[in-house]
Structure formats: structure tokens, C-alpha cells
């Protein structure tokens, strides 16, 4: 790394990890000790929403129902994100290990990996790794089994409750919340659902200890995180970086010298314009991200960028709730109409109000987060929307 502020770490892809030993030491702990260790680490979910992972495990552990599940959300679908694919490709055992530790903490006998339809090419290898893993569990007398369920290519199925519906063989539509998965998840049973990266970090915390993990990052954003870098960059790829850097530091490292905006967190994330690079921290105190970092240079039309995102949402909304299904169509047609001059430029304000309604009334995170890219692009690149 050329940049002093940007610390590249290598926790999860480290191949020297003694997998069995980490699992053994975790299994020697009591359930409370496991959850406390995780709590101490400050790990927040790596899917983007950032819910403290330990609390998710704790709430599920507290449920009296003896039938519980741990589910690995490997339905990575956010545009510009490909880090879970890399993790599953490189260190699948650590993902399984994270699930096994979670299973111990909450009292689950079964785990499921919901694998994105487009990642079917990973299936064969994952299954052969699972055989090795299960053999090891047998040897260690751990009564836990993992199965893989394939998705069919719907973005909405990354939303946890839609994912359960899909796993149960139904149409992938989000459920009403509450109840949350910790109370009623897969098969309406208490369920921990974590994404691939969260589970890997959970496992690694039991290798390095909570304290070491906590030393990385900031008060709000502990540890390191895997980023998938794409767009106008000479260095696209997967990088594990310490949390807490500013967008400016990120652009210094990965930009092509002409970066005008960075989309943090993919289509459902935030667009940071150049003027805000310096003051914007990548993390929960600034712009949170599931890992997608897209760089745009001056050759890009931000109208086209937004239009692409809206096209994506218009198609990937499950269509169940009104604000999301119709709202996405209206936002897309709306910016087209303004661009063509069929609607006055002040129609953008109307659309922003609509996006605000979507943000507070849509049934799930998909519809709620459309407003993120819409607001940040329309506000910061208004002239590109009109002329």
C-alpha cells in the first residue's frame, strides 16, 4: 500500500490458520463465553445494516424453542459486490467454522447456506469441502450439519425474510417484521442469519481473540472489512482493509486520478461526490457499506449511473409493496422525463419527496434503500439530471 493511512490487513484469507484448533478452542467455551467474546469484539454485521452480531446470537440463544437454525446468507447480489464469492472460493472452511461456532452458541443442529443462483459454479467445490468439514465434526463429536440451498437469481432473496421464504420453497417476498428472525426465521423457528463475511469474522475472532480485532478500526466501526473495488480504477479487486478510512484516502489508493464520485455500498448505498471525499468516513459513522466500492471518473454520466440503478431496482423489487414496486418505476420514468424536458426540473423535488416516502414506508430494506442512491446522486449532480 502506498498510502500510510490505509492499512491493508490479512485476517481472513490467511492460509496458516489451524482450523481444527480454532474450532476446538471455541467449543471448549460455554455458550455465554462465546457470545461475550463476540460482544467484546464489537463485530457488526457485514451485510450493510450493521446490527451487532453478538446480540443477534444472544437473542436467538435466549429463545426457549429447541429447534433453531443458523443460516449463511450467500446471496450476494448488490451491484459491484463480489467479496463473498472470493471468501467462499478461498476460505470456505472458515465460513463453515463460523456457522459451527454460532450453532454451539445458540443450540442449533442444522445450518444452511443459501447460495446465490449465479454462484452455482462454486457448488461442487463447496460440497466437497463440506464433506471434509462434516468428517471433522464427526471426529470432534459435534452434532451439526450444513446443507446448501441454491437461490434462483432474485436480488430480493438476499433480504433475510425473503430468503427464508425462498428456502421454504415459496416465492421470495419479504415478511412483516416483527417478528424478527431471532424469534421466527427459517421454518418460523429462531434463526441466526449472517452473511458470509460476518461468519468468517466470527470465526477469526476466535482465532485472534476479541481484543486484537477490537484494536482495528474506530469506536463505531471495529475491525477490518473486505471491499470489492470496481469501476474507474486501475486496481479492481478484493481488498481487506481496516475500517475508519476516509473516501479521500480510499481514492488516493484506488482512484485513477480523475475520480469524481464514489458509490459506497452499491446501488442501495450512497454516492459520495469529490467535494465530500475528505470529510466522509467509510464506516458506520459515515457511509456504511456492505463492501461494494465503485469509482466513477469524469467520463461518466451520473444520470446514466442513477438510471442504471433505478432500472436494476425496478426489475429486482419483489413487487409486493406499493412504494417499492411503483415507486421504482416512477423514479426511473421521472428522471427520464426531466432529462427529455417532458417534465420541469422541479419535478425532481417531487421525486425526492417520493423517494422519502419509499424510505419510510417500503416493507423491506430494498425499497427503503432506493432513496440512498437517488438522493445522493440527484442532490450532488442535479445539473447532470437536467441537462
Amino acid at each position, binding site marked *: 500500500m502506498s498510502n500510510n493511512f490505509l492499512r491493508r490487513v490479512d485476517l481472513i484469507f490467511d492460509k496458516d490458520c489451524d482450523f481444527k484448533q480454532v474450532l476446538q478452542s471455541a467449543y471448549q467455551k460455554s455458550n455465554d463465553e462465546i457470545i461475550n467474546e463476540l460482544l467484546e469484539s464489537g463485530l457488526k454485521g457485514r451485510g450493510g445494516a450493521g446490527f451487532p452480531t453478538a446480540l443477534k446470537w444472544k437473542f436467538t440463544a435466549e429463545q426457549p424453542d429447541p429447534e433453531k437454525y443458523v443460516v449463511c446468507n450467500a446471496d450476494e447480489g448488490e451491484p459491484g459486490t463480489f467479496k463473498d464469492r472470493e471468501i467462499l472460493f478461498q476460505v470456505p472452511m472458515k465460513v463453515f467454522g463460523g456457522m459451527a461456532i454460532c450453532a454451539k452458541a445458540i443450540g442449533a443442529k442444522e445450518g444452511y447456506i443459501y447460495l446465490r443462483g449465479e454462484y452455482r459454479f462454486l457448488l461442487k467445490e463447496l460440497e466437497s469441502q463440506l464433506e471434509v468439514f462434516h468428517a471433522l465434526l464427526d471426529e470432534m463429536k459435534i452434532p451439526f450439519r450444513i446443507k446448501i440451498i441454491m437461490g434462483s437469481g432474485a436480488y430480493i432473496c438476499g433480504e433475510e425474510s425473503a430468503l427464508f421464504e425462498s428456502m421454504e420453497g415459496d416465492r421470495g417476498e419479504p415478511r412483516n417484521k416483527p417478528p424478527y428472525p431471532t424469534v421466527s426465521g427459517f421454518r418460523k423457528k429462531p434463526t441466526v442469519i449472517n452473511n458470509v463475511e460476518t461468519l468468517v469474522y466470527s470465526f477469526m475472532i476466535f482465532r485472534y481473540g476479541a481484543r486484537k480485532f477490537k484494536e482495528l478500526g474506530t469506536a463505531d466501526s471495529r475491525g477490518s472489512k473486505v471491499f470489492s473495488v470496481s469501476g474507474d480504477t486501475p486496481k479492481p479487486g478484493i481488498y481487506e482493509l481496516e475500517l475508519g478510512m476516509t473516501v479521500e484516502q480510499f481514492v488516493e489508493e484506488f482512484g485513477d486520478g480523475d475520480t469524481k464520485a464514489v458509490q459506497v455500498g452499491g446501488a442501495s448505498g450512497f454516492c459520495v461526490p469529490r467535494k465530500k471525499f475528505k470529510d466522509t468516513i467509510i464506516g458506520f459513522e459515515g457511509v456504511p457499506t456492505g463492501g461494494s466500492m465503485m469509482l466513477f471518473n469524469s467520463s461518466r454520466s451520473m444520470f446514466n449511473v442513477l438510471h442504471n440503478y433505478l432500472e436494476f431496482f425496478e426489475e429486482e423489487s419483489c413487487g*409486493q409493496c406499493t412504494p417499492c414496486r411503483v415507486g421504482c418505476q416512477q423514479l426511473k420514468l421521472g428522471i427520464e422525463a426531466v432529462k427529455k424536458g417532458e417534465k420541469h426540473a422541479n419535478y425532481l423535488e417531487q421525486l425526492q419527496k417520493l423517494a422519502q*416516502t419509499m424510505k*419510510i414506508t417500503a416493507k423491506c430494506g430494498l425499497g427503503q434503500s432506493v432513496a440512498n442512491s437517488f438522493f445522493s446522486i440527484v442532490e450532488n449532480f442535479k445539473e447532470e439530471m437536467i441537462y
Partner: protein
Amino acid sequence: MMAKQINLTIDGMPITVDEGTTILQAAKKLNIHIPTLCYHDDLCVAGNCRVCVVEMKGSRTLPASCAMPVAEGMEIQTNTIKVRTARKHIIDLLLSEHNAKCTTCYKNGNCELQELAAEYKISEPMFIDLVPHKNYQMDAYSPSIIKDDSKCIRCQRCVRTCEELQHVSALGVAYKGDKMKISTFFENPMFEVVCTNCGQCVNRCPTGALVERNYVDEVWQAIFDEDKHVVVQTAPAVRVALGEALGMEPGEIVTGKMVTALKRLGFDSVLDTDFSADLTIMEEGFELLGRLKKALVDKDPNVRLPMATSCSPGWIKFIEHTYPEYLDNLSTCKSPQQMFGALAKTYYAQKRNLDPAKIVSVSIMPCTAKKFEADRPEMRSSGYKDVDYVLTTRELAIMIKQAGIDFASLPESHYDSVMGASTGAAVIFGATGGVMEAALRTAYEVVTGREVPFDGLNITPVRGMDGVREAAVKIEGTKPEWSFLEGAELKTVVAHGLTNAKKVMDAVRDGKANWHFIEIMACPGGCIGGGGQPIPTNEEIRKKRAEAIYREDEGMPIRKSHENPEVLAIYKEFLGEPNSHKSHELLHTHYKERQRY
């Protein structure tokens, strides 16, 4: 165990409710009206339309009040500027996707979206009209139900109805995003899929996306044709519901006014399906006794028991699709509508000296599946189409309004003759359990010569709204010719709503049933909750209609089918005896297996 009590405030007013109550239900207790669209009393909560959002202190988002359970200390505001703006946006979004040619819509004036748009004073469309961007198609091939996607607001009430209440799942959600729609298996037309035509979806659709195929114009045409003799029959459940569609309260008995209205509309003869309901009891009762004799005395291994009723055309289509191996368990009796139709163009034509070719036979039914039933190829045993047009209760209300009749102020009058006389036993066909009760009243008396041993002929165990109800009657003191039934216990079961029909049929299939006689009605509550009945419907309304049915029965001078004088006369003059050759020719039929997919 007492439910835990939760304290919260809504619009500043404190209220204490049971744990598990939703905000919507709690607000209702405070007489606060929150608008809803996808919500329906009969169905599971969906939270799809988001019209019912409210503001909840401490929450970034506005939760849907229909789907959000109360929590201790919750502070809810139902009418803030934030809530109003959001609701208006949502209504506007729905309108932008909706073919809003309200003036030419069948549901004009009876549409929940229209009401909501009026309530929120949507004067100018806020967003771009999406209708021209959609490739909307209308499915108008079914004789019963028309599906118009351009009017669909995707609330999924119909999907939930079809799956939860009916276990049919003919309707489901297809595609996603902007292309998401309510569709059928492989997007086939409704008449090619497992749809039973029950119309429960029509009854719950908030807009004009699902409506009955209406034959009002055809019937007017026939009425005004001097050359035609138009007879109309009215089903038992219509007389306790029609009033609702004409501004009266649920549960009003409007039999006399309805007859007057039909006469004023210009029908040449106003007759009663109750007549053929009584006839059905005679045919079906003797058929059951015959099957029991074959099974018990003749030890005939081919006789199929339990015998199941065949009055409900939705149920018939369901069994054809879903349990075809049990088709022989069905009574071979046609439904009262079809018995009436077959007799209208034979017996009635003879008695009135009319050319059957010139008779137009119309029926007023609480049911959309009756339209399909009338169109079945089996239903032409008079040599003509036995029933030409079937109108729902709603369609009759339309005709009454169109004719400018002030229904509430009408005097009462009596049905015409012949085929106009009825009994209390026939009236109760309208409610779930009614056919069973009517059959027992007759069968017991035929076998023993005494009235069925229940207080005042009211066989209460088969009444009510429980999904599946069992009853047993011990037969004692038989007449000599029925001595083989001495001491036998006649076991019966009643189910309404096809989800309950499935429970009964699964028990039969799994050998877990020892019933002799099964009554199944496709619709919740039986015909009083039929798919052709006034909208809205919910359990409370259905109970009121059912109570009215039993009141009507209690008030009838004759309450047993075998005492209906016109029924006795038709056997003497025309049919001979129950299950005679002629009866079988005109009043019985067989059904066929249909594919599930």
C-alpha cells in the same frame, strides 16, 4: 390463560389491549379509522399496500398498522403530515399503475381504491401514468370470472383467498418488480386452470380486477322479447343478502320484496329454487337410503360410501380436479338450480302449455360457479340449455337499481306457481349444514315415521361456523321396510370452504372417517357466503345472513321437504317416485375427472 395486557397511546389516547393485537385493531377500538386496502377480515395479514401506515415514536420508518403488533409504551400517531403525505403518495402510486377509467368500470361506485382516492381528494395525478407502459391483458374466457390486470393493485387478497380459504391456489404471484402480476399456472386462462369458479376472490377484490361475468344485458334482452317466456328462480341464500346491496343491513329477510321486484322487472314467472331444493332432498335422501341398503343388506362391495352432496358447483369442480377417485362418492343428484332448469323446460312447460324453445330460464344465485355449472354440457337434459342465464345476487341488485325501483319501500308478494312452493328445509340450504339438516329431517321420518329427535326440528350440531362439524343420529323404531337400519347410527359431517373440504376428503382417503353422509359447500358459511353475494363479506356479516336463514325456516308453515305440496304433486303427476327412471333422466348426472395442472 389471560393474555398479557399492553398499554399504549394512539393519537394521545391511552388504551390497554391484549398482547398480539395490531395497531389497526387497537385503533379500531378507539373508533379511529385507518384506511386499508390489502387488509381483509377473512385473510392473513399481508402488509402489502402500505396505505395503513402510521407514525410510531422512536421509529425511523412508518410501520403498516395492519401488520405491526402493539408493544408496551408505544406512542402512535395516525394523522400527522408525515402520515398523510405518505398515504397520499401511496394512493397516487396505485392510481398511476391502475386503469382508472372508473366511469366504465363494472365496479364503479363499489371500489375501495376509488373510495380512498375520494377520501384523500386526489384531484390531479401526481405521477406519470404507467398504464400505457404495461402490456395488460384481460382474461374474459371463463363463464364465471373475468380478470382484468389493468385494474389490479396487486394487494394479493385474491391470492390469499384462493390459497387460505379455498386451498385451490389457482391464483398466484408471478414475475417480480414492474412486471409482477397476479397470474395462473403458466398464465393459462382461468377456465383452463384449477379455478373452481367459486368467486371468493371476486368477493374480496377491492377493485374491478376480478369480477363476475355479468349477464344483465342478456337478461334484459330476454325480458323485453315478447316472444319469450322468461322464468326466474331464486336461490335460498339470495333472500337474506340482496338487501345489503340495496342499502339495507346484513341479515334482513327480503323474500317478499324480492319477489315483487322480480315481477316488476318483467319476469313472466317468479319461482323458487327452494322448490327444487326440496326435490333434491327427496332424490338425495332416497339415494342415500338406497346406498345404505345396498351396503348393509345386499353387501354390495361396489356401493360408494360416504355419500357426498353435489349441490355446490365449486365443490364439484374441486373434487373433479383434486379427488377424482372419489367422484363416485358424490350423490348423482344435480344441484337444485339444475333440477329446476331441467324441469322448467319439461314439467313447467307442459303444465303451462308453453313451447320449451321459447322459455328462457334465469336463475338468481349467490354464486359465480353456478354460471359455469349452467354451461356444463351435462346440463341439457330438457333438450335445451336447462338454465340459460345465471345472475348473482349483485347482478339482480344492479337490475333493480337500473329499473328505478325503490327496493326498501316495496310491498311483499308471493312466488308464482308451479315450482314456487317451498319449505323451511329448502331455505336452510343457504347456510352451511343446511342440506344435511334438511336431509336428516326427511330421511329420519321416512325410515321411522317419526320426526327427527331434535328440539323443534332444529338439528343444531350441524349449524354454526366451525370449519368441520360432525353429528350422529341414532335410528330407532324403524318401519318394517327399513328394519335393516334399526339401531344404526347415521354419521354425518359438514364442511364449508374448500380448505375444510380438503380436511374431510383427506380423512376419507386415509381411512380415518366412518361417516355415511358428507355435506360440502365450497364457500365459507355455505351459500350465504357465496362468491356472488354482496360485497363486503366477513364472518360477522355471514353469521347475520345465516341467522336470517334460520329465522326464515322457523317462520315457515312447512319445514320438511317431503311435505312440500308441489313436490308431492310433481312425483304424482310427472316423476313417479324418487330415483325413478324419469328422475334419473332429468335430475341426476355424473361428473368427470379434470387435470390438476
